[in-house]
């Protein structure tokens, strides 16, 4: 399970962030409070991505599967961060 969490961390955080944003939009409208909630959720998600990235960067990874896992996890975190930032922009600009 630990390996799967490492591999999928960035995308799991993206998913949690996305569905939280959808929940806010669907059930709390799009007023000022909702937009602040979106901002806080985004800061929290990006913070979590950064923390996990830092942790994974410090993990020892011998060649082979462990190294491959670390690489996929790292790129996943980068992709997750881009997607999180991108999908929160409508709360600011729409």
């Amino acid at each position, binding site marked *: 399970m630990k390996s799967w969490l490492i591999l999928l961390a960035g995308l799991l955080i993206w998913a949690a962030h996305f569905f939280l944003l959808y929940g806010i939009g669907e059930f709390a409208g*799009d007023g000022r409070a909702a*937009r602040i909630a979106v901002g806080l959720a985004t800061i929290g998600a990006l913070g979590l991505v950064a923390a996990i990235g830092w942790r994974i960067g410090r993990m020892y990874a*011998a060649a082979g599967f462990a190294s*491959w*896992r670390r690489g996929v996890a790292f790129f996943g975190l980068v*992709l997750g961060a*881009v*997607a999180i930032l991108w*999908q929160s922009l*409508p709360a600011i600009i729409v």
Partner: protein
Amino acid sequence: MRSETGFDPALYDRFPTKGPRPEGEEEELRRIWCKPKGWEYLTVVNNNYVGIYYLGTAFLFFLLAGVLALLMRAQLAAPMLEILPQGTYNQVFTMHGTVMMFLFAVPAVEAAGVLLLPQMLAARDLPFPRLSAYAFWAYAVGGLCFFASIFVGLAPDGGWFMYPPLTSKAYSPGINTDFWLLGIGFIEISAIAGAIEIIVGVLRTRAPGMSLDKMPIFAWAMLVFAVMIVIAFPSIILGTLLLEIERALGWPFFDATRGGDPLLWQHLFWFFGHPEVYIIFLPAAGMLSMIVATVAREALVGYRLIVLAMVATGFISFGVWAHHMFTTGMPPMTTGFFSAASMAVSLPAGIQVFSWIATLAVGTPRFNAPGLFILGSIVIFVAGGLTGVMVAMVPFDWQAHDSYFIVAHLHYVLIGGMVFPLFAAFYYWIPMVSRRALSERLAKWVFGLMFAGMNIAFLPMHLAGLQGMPRRVYTYLPGQGLELPNLISTIGAFMLGAGVLLFLVDLARNFRLAPGEGNAGNVYGGGTLEWLPSELYSTRSIPVVKSREPLWDDPALGDDVAAGRYFLPGSATGLRETIVTSPLLAEPQYLQIMPGPSGWPFAAAIFTAGFFLALTVQAYGFAWASGVFAIIAVLRWLWETDRRVEAERVDIGAGIEVPTYVTGPSSHGWWAMVILLVVMGMIFVMALFSLAFLWSNQPAFWMTPPPLGEASVVLLLYGVAFLLALAGRGALRWRPSASVALLSASAAASAVALWLDYRGWTHTGLVPQATGQGAAIYALQALAACAVAIGLLMAAYCALRAARALVSQPRNNSIDLTVLLLGYTATQGLVGAIFGRLIGAGA
């Protein structure tokens, strides 16, 4: 990384073994995995047969739906034609979309998985061969009966996404819509069965040493595909159930005048419907990635990034469903979230496309038949992807919505992303199953006609759409500038059809199927394990995998495998068997004894189909009888499984011994059960969402639910049911009868809790026919009742096995799986009871 299971990887150095193998070892394998004869072709479960049946049936549906497409194009070739009457046209376009999506695209890629994965992973078969056979027969029988509805004018006619209120009883009073709802709902069960098989197969039956980083990219694609089915399909299963209940019983889930909401259907449908596009695309992309490497004679560039891209596509595709609903008036901020996610999903798709281009650029590509089709696929798919980004932008979508622009876009994506890769795969892998490869000369004509025809057919549709031609109209007026683009589209469609016809000619001339009796071999020079010499038992021995393209890196591998110098060179128990390995590093864990051919999966499929089809035509007595027989057939097929063999540990090669019976989280049965519970859990979660959605959108119809405190006995009973299930597992150490008694008590406690919960709601006066709240609350209870009924059935089944001394101690898989189900049942009941009382409580 340390060993995952305690297995010492140094043991792999014992392979390839030296010295001759015992006489008769290979003959025994042939005897155990023998060819069927006569009627046995109906009861066969081996993936070499089921995979071919599956693929052949899916291709048949492709042809049938293609004929429907040509009928539509003939009707639209000129204005005001009357080739198809308006009502028939509605049935034809509905069936075209439905058959292509549900009966061709998903089953075709699932079939490819069933056929190719065991070979690619060097397993003897997938872990649940009878489940594969059941999934196939259910799909084939159900699909053919469903398709036949068009010959009697009863085919559905509400479009492939069946939006209410058009499909409600008021506007679609006939049984056409019921055919769709029950027929498709049933076929989804088959897809889920296949997905469970594929997930467990990919994660647990890989050749030793094939860690995740060495797994063929197609296996990765199939893994993501199957997980997506498990997450996405429950939503449409729930949606079809709710709409059928609304039509049959008048519960107003989607009726806005009684507190329902038609937009709820759109959410439920598209939460499945958009991931469905990627469910179709990802396996095709996996095939494409495999073929690109062989065609370019170069290892795939960016394997790690492609794996990430596939997984990311799987995730992000669940965040785009509402981009089909931009014109429904969603709040602007929510619309923006979906627009952003719809653009973001193009990132991982782009990674894959660039990787294919890079592989072709650094390699020395040959433009043979598979090579041509992958090139065509990339061109068409990129064009469809670009128009996809266009319609992801809300203002553009408002203009293009429901116009022929969308028809053009979706066909570019689906034909480029799935049909062309599938044809590349046909040419590439047919030499694995046929004694002759297909003709390279004819292939160039097939490709030329299909590529040109596709573009001639669909490129003008962008124009027709921007000129204002709406989808799903059976004709148009002259003088609107639509004559020429429509005529060109029709010519292109028939060219595309001619290409497919030529492909059929090639098949008739060269495709010579003979499972286990030789094949054309590795004509394109692929580097993965499916090109090892194989028979019905797959490869003679199961190799140790040290790289992603083992055949390129070890030219002697094929000979060593065929000589039995690797794992499991013969049968260790005299039965069908395969090695189960660990999910990350593929270390050998145990020997799975596999079930052989049986008529019960076939019978179960026939009766399941009978149940759903009889419901559709309102033959309720026949339906319930079929349902009971289907359950009996499933239990009878299971009865022969979960039995220990005499030898507790066996040598699987080079003196390495593994157990023959494993229970708990290590067993493949446990994995399958957990995935099934995820499916049930997703159906339940979507039902909770439905309740919350209706409360959020129709608060005027909401009554204050009873206080949570009134349900304290209900909650307590569910808690007791959960603990009894756990205790039942522990009690097996002591006595099977004690275990069974506790499991039965758990099921009974859940049943009583559900009854009290139901009574609590009826006392409030809430009626399911009156409001959306009532409908959703009682739908939650109906779901709980289903889980309780299955729990009671499984407890009774365990009791019967215990009475026949078939329950092993101290652990037993049948008991373990029943514990899991009962624990889930109690949890679902508990959460449902709380959630129903909290939604709207503060109003």
